[in-house]
């Protein structure tokens, strides 16, 4: 193992993480909801009466973030995205992420941030599992194929 010092951004990543933590905290304490993106989005696809408005408001805020972010935050703080996967990999990945997060009741935000923060055994198991799966896939793609 060697460290990729060229891309390592401890401070902006820590600060970004703090913002994710603050957002999740405000959401549970004021809105009474777990901030889990896959759950919030998935709930719209199978709508129940009175359970859609809050999801839409949240997602609109998420959607507005890059637009308002580029206006109010210095550009140097944002990483230029490196998207190297081809279209077919992107499509397969999308299917896996969509189905997997709903089947497993959460993603990086719901299990990873909120679940670990509330010390949930289920979320710890899920987080370890999806991280391990990610390590294995990246190892296979980058070092075996």
């Amino acid at each position, binding site marked *: 193992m060697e460290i990729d010092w060229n891309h390592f951004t401890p401070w902006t990543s820590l600060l970004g993480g*703090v913002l994710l933590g603050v957002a999740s905290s405000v959401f549970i304490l004021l809105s009474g909801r777990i901030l889990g993106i896959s759950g919030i989005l998935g709930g719209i696809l199978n709508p129940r009466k009175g359970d859609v408005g809050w999801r839409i408001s949240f997602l609109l805020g998420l959607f507005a973030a890059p637009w308002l972010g580029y206006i109010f935050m210095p550009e140097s703080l944002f990483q230029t995205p490196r998207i190297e996967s081809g279209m077919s990999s992107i499509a397969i990945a999308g299917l896996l992420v*969509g189905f997997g997060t709903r089947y497993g009741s959460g993603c990086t935000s719901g299990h990873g941030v909120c679940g670990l923060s509330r010390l949930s055994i289920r979320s710890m198991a899920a987080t370890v599992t999806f991280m391990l799966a990610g390590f294995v896939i990246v190892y296979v793609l980058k070092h075996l194929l």
Partner: protein
Amino acid sequence: MTHRLIEFFVGLLFGFGLLLSGMTDPGKVIGFLDVFGNWDPSLAFVMAGAIAIGLFAFALAKKKTSTFLGTELHLPKYNKIDKPLLVGALLFGAGWGLAGFCPGPAIVSLASGQSKAAVFVIFMVFGMLVFERFSQFFIEKRSNP
């Protein structure tokens, strides 16, 4: 209306956090998952920052019976590690490693006009719809995260 505004601003804040943290850069996510290659540990700092804040909020939330605004507090009660949780997390992790996108950052990247993120989100929503359509075959009793 107050609630809708809070949800919007929480979504916005969460989106800012994702942009700042580097989670919206698939190359950075894959760099983190590439532990046996040129490793970028930044995402560990994202998790640390988020959980450091979240721990306090969720400890507080567990003691409360309603939110600070007097509304219902939805904390998951189900705590069994079951097959759907683990298989779902495995599929999600595989997709996450394949493309470097998880649901939140994919939506933010779609909003900033990344065409590959748009393809990812379309297939992700399709994967979620497949789950919704056939959930009775996959899961006998639906559980929240």
